[in-house]
Every structure is written in C-alpha cells, then in structure tokens.
C-alpha cells in the first residue's frame, strides 16, 4: 500500500479555534506538532462565529468577575455543566482574550481604549469581546497567523478517518488527502480532537459541510466515551427565507444590541415565555426591558435575552400556534429600535447578509427568523483540567468535547471555550507525549491496511446508492424525529431508520476516481454522522425530562432526579452504542455558595 508517513509528538485534528490554540500551546511546550484539517487553513467553522468571546474582563461593568460568569454559565446549562470546566472557563477566559491582542487581534474598544464588551443572552453583564459581528473571523485569523508565524506544520484539505491505538494508548492517526485521495499516517503518542460539531446530520442548520461529527465518531471508535449527547442547541434565530438560505445564522448580537422578537400580531411575545427559573432576573414590562440596556443596576434583562433554549422553544410555540410570519418564522426587529448608522456599525455582516441573500434592508425592515440546529453540547467525555479522554493520549477540546455547557450553551461561551480548553488540551497533549516519547509502538500494518480498505470500499461496489441521497434521508430523519421537540415514539422510529440507513451506508457506491471527489468524501463522512445521530437519539430517548437543549413533549417538566445524572454513550463491540447513567460530579461547597450569594 502506498502510504505517506510522518512522525510527531502531537497531532491536532481540526484547525478551528480549539485546534489552532491547542497546536500553538503544544508547540510552545516544545512538542513537534501537526495540524490536520479538512478545509483550507482559515476556513474552519469558527470563522462563522459572530457575536463575541465571553470573558469577565469587567471593562464596562466593574461588578463583573469570574464568579458571576461561572454562575451565568451553570444556570444557562440548567446546572448540568461539569462545574470544574465552567470554573476554569470563567477564570481563564479573560487572559485568553488579552493574549489574542498580543498576537494581533483588533477588538472594538471602549471609550477608555480597552476591549469593548457587548450584551448577550444569559449573561448578567455586557461581557462579549467582539469585532463588529465578525468576531470568529478575527479569532481564526489571529490564531492562523500565529500558527504560521511559529512554523507549525499544517496538513490542509486532509481528512482523518481513524485514530490508531494499542493497549497502551494512542499510536497515531490515518487519513487521506482530499486533493489526491492518497493515504497518509501520522505516528504520534498524542492526538487532540478539535473537529467541532455535528450539525450536518440535521436538515436546517447553521453548520458547514465539515460538521459531520468526525471527532465524536473517532473517539467512540478508539474506545472513548461521549457525554450529554441528548443536548443539541437550536439557535433561535436562523434565516427562514428564501429556502436556500434557511438555517443560516442571525447573530444573537441583534438582540444584544436592542433587537426584539414579534409575532405576526405585532406582539413582543417573549414576555409570555419567561420560565420561573429566570423570572427573578428578567424584566416584566417592555419599559423595564428597554431601560436595561443603559441601566443594568435598576432594571432586569429583556426576555429576548433569555438563554437560547428558552427563546428557540418560544419561537417554535408561536409558529405552531399560527402566529408566525408568512415563511414560518417570527419577526426580529431592530429597524424600529436603533438608527441605521448604529445598525450598520454594530451589525455589518448581518446587514450585508440580508441585503445580498434575502433582499431585506435590516435598517428599515424586520427580519424573519426561526430555530436552526447550531451546536451540540454533548461530546467526548474529558478530564476538566487536561481534556484527556478515557483513552491515554487522546484529548478533545472545543465543540467536540462535552461537559462544559451542560444542557445548553450561552452565546459567547463557545469562542472562550475553544481558547481556554484548546490551550489546556495542547499543554496536556505535549506533556503526555514527553512521557511516551520513544515508547510508542509502531503503527500496526493490519490497522493501516484495514483503514485503507474501508476508505476505498465505496469505489469497489457497483450499483450501490448515491451518498447524497442517504445524507438527505438522514437529515430529514433527524429533523423530523429528533429535533427541537421530542417524543419517545418518534425517537424509536428514528432509531429504526438509523439502522436502515446503516445498511444503506454500507452499500454506497461513488463515481469517478480518488482525486478531489466530494461524493467519495461524503461517503466516508456518513458513518460518522450516523454514529453521532444514534448517540443523540439513544440518549434523548433515555432522558425522560425536559432540560436545556432537550425538550420532551411526553416529559415536559424538569426533573430533580435527572438533575443529578449524566448520560454516557459508549461503543459496543459490535460497533453500536450503549447509554449508561453516571452521577453528575458534585460541586464543592465554596462554589455552591456562589449561587446563594448572587441569586
């Protein structure tokens, strides 16, 4: 078999915020580092993040500190977050933002010349460091330029299909160059998964083609476990019209900067959907909500800035009740609330996006928006301090890791998550490599041959099904049966369909040859999408309550028993998935006190 081989200490799979931050840290710790990514460098999904990076820097509100951020994060996740991850995240995010400035990032400024911070859902104070509404681009470009300046090796347009291991732990990874279809293997004691999310298993999503759950699947195949997979975030505001742009994200900054949600009757309906859990901190009248933007001490947050799960459910209910817009969304209005100059200054990408794609001028008209699959809270179960998975040498950071966000992620907490845990994963991966250097068994020829055979099998079958059709059917299944509102009957049906889809995926055929062949690439991504979809459906069926990004029509209440339980997905010997219950890690007393002091 023709195979290109490389030696490294740390192989980072994925070149978004988490992957690049991990690579930088591992490199600075002295490790030989490779970054492997499916797209060109700088195109990863992080580039689409709009609103900002949540960090309690207290540049605008001196009252803000890590304890308040920690509390907001835990409450936003309905207390199911791993407390230690939420703590580390809140404590370290400000340093991670400041460090970006030393690498060339140019954030918007406060009048004092400090990094400006903006309001977002679920955050008590204006906390998101931002650059207009293109913060993700700034973050990825800064990390990309830093990576290049440090001379880190990047394998662009290269897909990892296997993580390789032996009894002692990780030995490396196997993949193919998208451009040529040729195989490549990396021999390394540490692999950091930073592959992002799973949104492409859903029909309406803000996610790009890359989000096929590769890292989730690679971890399962290597024998690691996933946690919280039932929690999928539907962002409340995606575009709904025209059909071809359905699902594209409309940043939460629109609401953070003063935008409101209205139904077809013109009512500001979010006031009807304030849950008891957030009632004490949410405005009761429109007048109070409007005053809050200027005076946070004496007023409470507008209900449009409740956490995303609450807003998405509310929009869903309004549309179902027949109070939606002509195209099945609700209205998001900033035109009647802020000046055109302010809107263009604060939300330039949104202005551009609606103008170009929907012929809507958001400075004069309301937008039509509805929920879109945006983020998976669930992911690889990791040690909070090192991001180590259950397999020695395997690490995970960013969206592919689980635990940090509990049942629902607050806006802005993703970019900070990437930086905080990307850095920690990189450091731990480098340290692990030091302990293993020289003792890593060579890559097994059998494993390599098996990986190559599996990758080439779609070419060998003739007359099989087209991968695009199978992907479409999977997306429809997840959309219809494991979407924003769930029932046991529907999820059981979804699991049956997933079993049928597995058979179809095993019989795919692709046309053409190995050189830059998207049909083949999709055929190799599909098994990952299926295993992730199965994990979501199985965990969602198991959790008989509603919490955060998991809403059961047949169990609509939040249940105190379930508040103490995590669901863990593990691989079975037959390549399936089992779900087990595991007690939630208990927060130490001094952290628990934060909830008493400030609520």
């Amino acid at each position, binding site marked *: 078999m023709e195979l290109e081989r490389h030696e490294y200490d740390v192989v980072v799979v994925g070149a978004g915020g988490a992957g690049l931050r991990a690579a930088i840290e591992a490199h600075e710790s002295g490790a030989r580092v490779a970054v492997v990514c499916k*797209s*060109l*460098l*700088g*195109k990863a*999904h992080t*580039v*689409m993040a709009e609103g900002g990076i949540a960090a309690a820097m207290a540049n605008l509100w001196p009252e803000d500190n890590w304890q308040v951020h920690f509390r907001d994060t835990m409450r936003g996740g309905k207390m199911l977050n791993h407390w230690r991850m939420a703590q580390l995240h809140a404590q370290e995010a400000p340093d991670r933002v*400041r460090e970006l*400035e*030393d*690498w*060339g990032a*140019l954030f*918007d*400024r406060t009048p*004092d*010349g*400090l990094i*400006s911070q903006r309001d977002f859902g679920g955050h008590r104070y204006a906390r998101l460091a931002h*650059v*207009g509404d*293109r913060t*993700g*681009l*700034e973050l990825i*470009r800064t990390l990309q*330029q830093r990576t*290049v*300046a440090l001379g880190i090796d990047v394998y662009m347009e290269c897909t990892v299909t296997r993580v390789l291991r032996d009894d002692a732990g990780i030995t490396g990874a196997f993949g193919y160059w998208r*451009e040529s279809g040729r195989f490549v293997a990396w021999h390394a004691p540490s692999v950091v998964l930073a592959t992002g999310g799973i949104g492409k298993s859903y029909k309406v999503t803000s996610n*790009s083609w*890359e989000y096929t759950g590769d890292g989730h699947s690679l971890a399962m195949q290597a024998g690691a476990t996933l946690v919280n997979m039932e929690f999928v975030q539907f962002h409340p505001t995606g575009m709904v*019209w*025209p*059909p*071809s*742009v359905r699902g*594209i*994200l409309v940043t939460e900054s629109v609401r953070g900067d003063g935008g409101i949600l209205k139904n077809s009757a013109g009512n500001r309906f979010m006031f009807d959907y304030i849950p008891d859990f957030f009632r004490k901190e949410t405005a009761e009248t429109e007048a109070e909500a409007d005053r809050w933007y200027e005076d946070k001490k004496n007023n409470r947050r507008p209900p449009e800035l409740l956490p995303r799960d609450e807003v998405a459910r509310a929009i869903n209910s309004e549309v179902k009740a027949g109070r939606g817009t002509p195209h099945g969304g609700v209205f998001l209005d900033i035109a009647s609330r802020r000046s055109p100059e302010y809107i263009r200054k604060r939300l330039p*990408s949104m202005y551009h*996006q609606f103008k*170009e*794609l*929907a012929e809507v001028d958001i400075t004069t008209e309301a937008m039509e928006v509805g929920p879109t699959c945006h983020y998976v809270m669930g992911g690889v179960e990791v040690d909070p301090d090192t991001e180590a998975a259950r397999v020695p040498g395997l690490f995970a950071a960013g969206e592919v890791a689980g635990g940090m966000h509990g049942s629902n992620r607050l806006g802005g907490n993703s970019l900070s998550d990437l930086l905080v845990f990307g850095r920690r994963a990189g450091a731990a991966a480098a340290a692990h490599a030091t302990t293993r250097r020289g003792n890593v068994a060579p890559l097994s020829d059998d494993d390599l041959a098996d990986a190559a055979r599996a990758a080439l099998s779609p070419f060998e079958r003739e007359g099989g099904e*087209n*991968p*695009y*059709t199978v992907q*479409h059917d999977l997306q429809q299944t997840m959309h219809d049966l494991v979407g924003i509102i769930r029932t046991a009957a529907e999820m059981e049906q979804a699991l049956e369909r997933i079993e049928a889809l597995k058979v179809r995926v095993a019989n795919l055929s*692709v*046309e*053409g*040859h190995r*050189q*830059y*062949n*998207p*049909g*083949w690439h999709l055929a190799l991504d599909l098994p990952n999408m299926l295993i992730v979809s199965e994990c979501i459906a199985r965990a969602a069926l198991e959790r008989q309550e509603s919490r955060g990004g998991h809403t059961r029509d047949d169990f609509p209440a939040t249940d105190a028993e379930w508040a103490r339980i995590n669901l863990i997905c593990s691989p079975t010997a037959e390549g399936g998935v089992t779900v087990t219950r595991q007690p939630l890690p208990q927060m130490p007393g001094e952290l628990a006190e934060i909830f008493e002091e400030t609520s």
Partner: protein
Amino acid sequence: MSYDGTFRVWRGDADGGDLQTYTVEVNEGEVVLDIIHRLQATQAGDLAVRWNCKAGKCGSCSAEINGRPRLMCMTRMGTFAEDETVTVTPLRTFPVIRDLVTDVSYNYEKAAQIPAFTPRPREADGTHRVQQIDVERSQEFRKCIECYLCQDTCHVIRDHEENKAAFAGPRFLIRLAELDMHPLDVVDRRNAAQEEFGLGYCNITKCCSEVCPEGIHLTDNGIIPLKERVVDRKYDPLTWLGSKIGRRRQE
C-alpha cells in the same frame, strides 16, 4: 417559481478539460452554489468544488461566473435571466487541481513570508489601551475573508506566472498595510513591501477593490497609503542619511 436553467461548468484537471453543459432546476432565492450542489447530488457526484459556510463569511467558494470573479454562495440566480446560460469556471490565476478547485498554495506561501505581528509591551496594568478610531483603519483589512478573488483578478499575476515570485498580490499588500497601520505593531515592513513583496508592481487600476466581496477599499485605503509611506521612507533625506550612518534600523 422553478425553472430549468442551462449551466456550463468547467470539468477537468491539470492535464486539461472543457466546459460541459447541464440542465439544472433553479428555485426561488437560490444562489449559484445551490445549483452546483444540486448538480453534485443528482448528476455529477464527483464534481469538485470548495465551499464551507455558504454565507459569504469563509471565502471558500470562489470561482469565475460568466467570467467575473465571484463567491458562488453570494451570487443570486435572480441576477440572471431565466434563459441566460450561466458559465462557471475555476479561478484562472491559480493552477487547476480538478473542476472548480484550484491550487491556492501561492497565497499560503506569501502569507508565511510576511514578517509576523510584533506588539509593543502592555501597559503597567496588563492591558493595551487603543482608541476605536485607531483600530478601525486596520480593521477594514482584517475583514478580509481570504477568498483570493483580488489575487485572481490582479493583472500582475493573472496570466503572468512569471511575476508570482516577486509579487505577493493585493491580498498580501493589504496585509502589509494592515500591519503598517496596526496601532500595536512595532516592526517597519516598508522596505520589505517594496523589495520582497513587489508593491511597485501595482499600478492601482483598482480591479481588486471592484471584486472584493467584503467591500474593502484595497487600493484607496491600503495600497496607495502604503506606497506613500514607502516613498516617504525612501526619499526622505534624513531617513536616507540615517540609514547610511547606521543609526536606524535596516529592516
């Protein structure tokens, strides 16, 4: 609302290829990338194309549409007549890999050659204090999504492979301008801009600004001011004298 549109798409690889004609369904509100995806899903599963965000934010789906450098995800089908044939070809300035995918490694090589951002020290309180007005000039260039449409359209390197070694292209001239205007950066790259990155090759025809999907004024706000700064340095008699007696930095 739907109609059958006629598309000509370049299919081939480094050894050659040609335009192939397809009839594809077009629906209301669609963009060219939707058509390419439908073509992949129904008629040409192996049609090679780059794309990621489908929202004009990542700069992956660059191509030439009816001869004009465009992002496929931001080109609405509504801008063409229903009976108009839409021709999609790969970026001409870069070598073809396959179909609509080109080898853009030239850009990554140039990016790696640019002297890295080097900040001044932080203030005593650990912050950097900078006014909004001072970050905005560089922020304009940091909006760049690296779609390389400016590189594609630039006549210095379009059809002039021989100039690529000496010329970094508009994308990287504005990167140099960005660093030159960056309020925290301390490195002087003016000499390098001229000597290593070929600033002098640009004769400001502004084609790059015209095709930029982000509306960046590459020439007016980036390249021309950079040229002026280079000239200031080069022809300022005191600077010249200083460089000769070795008390100024040479870089």
